[in-house]
């Protein structure tokens, strides 16, 4: 990744009356990367995007694009392009007129505009549909037009606001791959806003998880999923089991011993170990817990009772109860296994590499 960020913002704050929508958000976006801002509705992600696009002015904080301060620049003077959630295609213009809008506004010669529109149409695989009206296109096609229109004048940063939320589930997956292809092919720098954590995990180079107007964690998708910084991130990205315990000590083999509600667990997590006696909170993903075969013995075994069984096709999800703690356990690839039944008692094996949250991570 190159050294210099293309887009930087620092301490961005936006208030609506008594409500603080965005509370001192800072980040740096590097050329060619796709960074998602993901969070529940009301977390401030759309406000952030509108600030970056120039549709809102921050109450505090600054924005730099290519090193120059653009905080006070209006949208038409910023080299950013926003693709709106509802696409905002101009209904009184054809597809080609929509795509060429930015070029025509800049008074480019019509031959150049036409050439550029042609290029963009084939880029988004809509050749031959230039004469159509937006309302004669399907949702997926409208989405591509919006994208092509935003790319018309080669923006430095592309801002995408929930771009796939208006598509049906199947199309959403296809467009995800399509977006990724375009972003790689054109080396686009993209700020991507979504509430869909799975979409964010699959499409992003980096993810920023937001809540209550603040960034809770920034990192690679794997980092965010496997080593969430706090309970909010753990809960929002994927499904998480939490086990409370206390750091008991370290064995001679370097294993960390935790006295938990589920009994003694021996772990060797990455990162610094908490000091003995400190409270710890383990975060364990459902697919990391295994159901032990009958009679197998070993460490980190916990007896549990199955409360619910949910078959989803790609996995079986069990709701379990162990020592008063509710757990979610996934059994992947259920083709060759006989599912356990409700009320059955099983033994669970906890992974030795479980992630734990620092004691000060309140949320």
């Amino acid at each position, binding site marked *: 990744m190159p050294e210099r960020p293309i887009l930087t913002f620092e301490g961005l704050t936006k208030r609506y009356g008594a409500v603080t929508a965005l509370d001192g958000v800072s980040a740096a976006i590097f050329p060619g990367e796709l960074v998602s801002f993901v969070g529940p509705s009301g977390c401030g992600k759309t406000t952030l995007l*509108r600030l970056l696009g120039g*549709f809102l002015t921050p109450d505090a904080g600054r924005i730099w694009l290519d090193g120059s301060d653009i905080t006070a620049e209006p949208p*038409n003077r910023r080299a950013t392009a926003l693709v709106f959630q509802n696409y*905002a295609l101009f209904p*009184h213009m054809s597809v080609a007129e929509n795509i060429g809008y930015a070029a025509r506004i800049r008074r480019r010669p019509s031959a150049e505009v036409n050439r550029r529109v042609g290029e963009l149409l084939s880029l988004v695989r809509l050749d031959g549909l230039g004469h159509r009206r937006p309302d004669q296109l399907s949702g997926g096609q409208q989405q591509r037009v919006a994208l092509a229109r935003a790319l018309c004048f080669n923006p430095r940063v592309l801002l995408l606001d929930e771009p796939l939320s208006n598509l049906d589930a199947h199309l959403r997956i296809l467009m995800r791959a399509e977006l990724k292809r375009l972003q790689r092919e054109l080396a686009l720098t993209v700020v991507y806003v979504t509430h869909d954590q799975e979409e964010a995990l699959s499409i992003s180079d980096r993810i920023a998880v937001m809540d209550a107007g603040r960034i809770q964690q920034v990192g690679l998708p794997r980092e965010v999923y496997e080593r969430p910084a706090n309970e909010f991130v753990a809960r929002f990205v994927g499904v998480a089991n939490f086990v409370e315990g206390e750091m008991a000590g370290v064995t001679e083999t370097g294993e960390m011993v935790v006295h938990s509600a589920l009994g003694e667990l021996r772990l060797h997590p990455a990162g610094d170990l908490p000091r003995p006696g400190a409270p710890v909170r383990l975060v364990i993903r459902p697919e990391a817990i295994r159901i032990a075969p009958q009679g197998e013995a070993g460490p980190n075994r916990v007896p549990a009772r199955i409360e619910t069984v949910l078959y989803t096709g790609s996995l079986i999800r069990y709701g379990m109860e162990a020592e008063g703690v509710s757990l979610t356990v996934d059994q992947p690839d259920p083709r060759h296994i006989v599912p356990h039944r409700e009320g059955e008692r099983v033994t669970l094996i906890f992974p030795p590499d479980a992630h734990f949250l620092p004691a000060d991570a309140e949320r």
Partner: protein
Amino acid sequence: MTVAAATRRGRPGESVQALADALTMPALTVLMVGALLLFIVYPLGLVFVKSFEGDAGPTLGNYVRFFSSRYFLGSLRNSLVLAAITTAATVTLGLVVAFVVTRGPTALRMPARLTALLPLIAPSYVFGVALIILGGRQGLVNQMLGTEFRIFGWPGVILGQVLTILPVCYLMAENVLTSMDRNLEDSASDLGASALQVVRTITLPLATPGLLKAALLAFALSIADFATPTILGGGLAFLAQDALLLVIGAEYDLRMASVLSVFLILPSFVSFLVHHRWLAGRSYTTITGRGGAVEARAMPPVLQVPLVLLTMVVCLAILIPMAVVVFGAFTQLAGINNAWTLQHFSNFRGLRALAFSLRMAAVAAGIAAVLGVVLAYVLARRRFAGRSLVEFVALLGFAIPGTVLGIGYVLAFNTPPLRLTGTFWIIVLGCVFHYLAVVVEAGISKLSQIDVSLEEASRDMGASTLGTFGRIVLPLMGTALMAGLVYTFMNSMLTLSTVIFLISPGRETASAVIFHFARMGELGLASAFSVLLIGAVLLCLAVLWTVVRRRGMLVLGGTG
């Protein structure tokens, strides 16, 4: 049909009741259709027939007479020129004010909006009175500036009509601008368009269909308006005014009045057809998807300064005449003898007319609200042949000028068996069937938000058709009913065109008396009763509004 209802219907003992229940809706439908035929289609048909009536059977002679008359052709030309000017001015100014209200400085929005809507409760004859006090030979302008200005003629009719018709165009422009997806303008700006380019390439093109509709409506309203030309025309001839004189003047000629009516209907009818089509069809403003949080961004000064200035001029042009009417009401003779007096308020004829108007409008509002809600229910929930035609007829009653409906009533109800001319009821019925469409539309749109399953649930649990209507539909339609009541009351109080041919000695409305005072030059009396009339309307609106608000909360609390 649900299982429970089907088995219940199968029981022999209740078959009579079931039959009565099954007949409720068809009976209501027939009743409503009959009323519309009798009070809208029949009178209008008579106007049309009358225009072809000759001494020896049907003839085109009346039309030939119209087109070979230099006088009528002059009237036609004047009406068209006036309508064109009024339309251009009201659409432009309406758009300007709407632009400032929806996108301008926050502090200006509410005052500008309220001022622009003010003429809705101040009809043309009130502005007429104000403009004479201001711009007459001995008017305030000449008194203060020592000029020889005369408002009568073109300046008067144009100014009067623009002020009267402005709120209609303003409302339509405002509706277009607020329902427009703001993301479209944001998107254009994001793609590099300057504020002016956004307006030119996005806002105006998107607003054009709505503005065209507003233009058509303004044109139709201008053509049909007779009060402004009569009060301020200074002898210029206009079609609507000619129609008035042919019915109530010395040259009594109902055939020619009918010919003029046909011409008066035409623009309204075209406008109506366009609206009707558009309502059912597509429009640029209905684009799916939600917009994000929208924050008002300041308009750039190039746009803001001229638009705000123009808006202020418009607001002053509305407020000054209003203030002048109040001034005129409390002075001996505004401009000449400015001594304070209350004498204008004690005029017997005026007070009697005001009381009559209150009574008439209250009765009309009650009938229109009930009929409108029932008709809306029939139209929204029943599928029968000619359903859309019935809705069309109801709307037609509203679309045509009140004067034409009035002439139709004169033709239709002056002979037995339905001899109504000279009665209280002919005025009430005129107002009911002129404004019924508004109640119907409000009711239909409300019903389209109420799921049919609520009524099915009620019937499933054993309620009859009427019972379901009374217990489920009516309470849910409360707001539509109230809106219809308020609208019909207010407009029945203020209308002049609908009632002008239907009044009789002792049974005249306040609007007609003010119009009479204005024509006679009794400006003090005209001002005083304008103040009283508008005051009465405002008072009633305020009372109704508090009631509606309180009830609205109750309804919300009950269903939430």
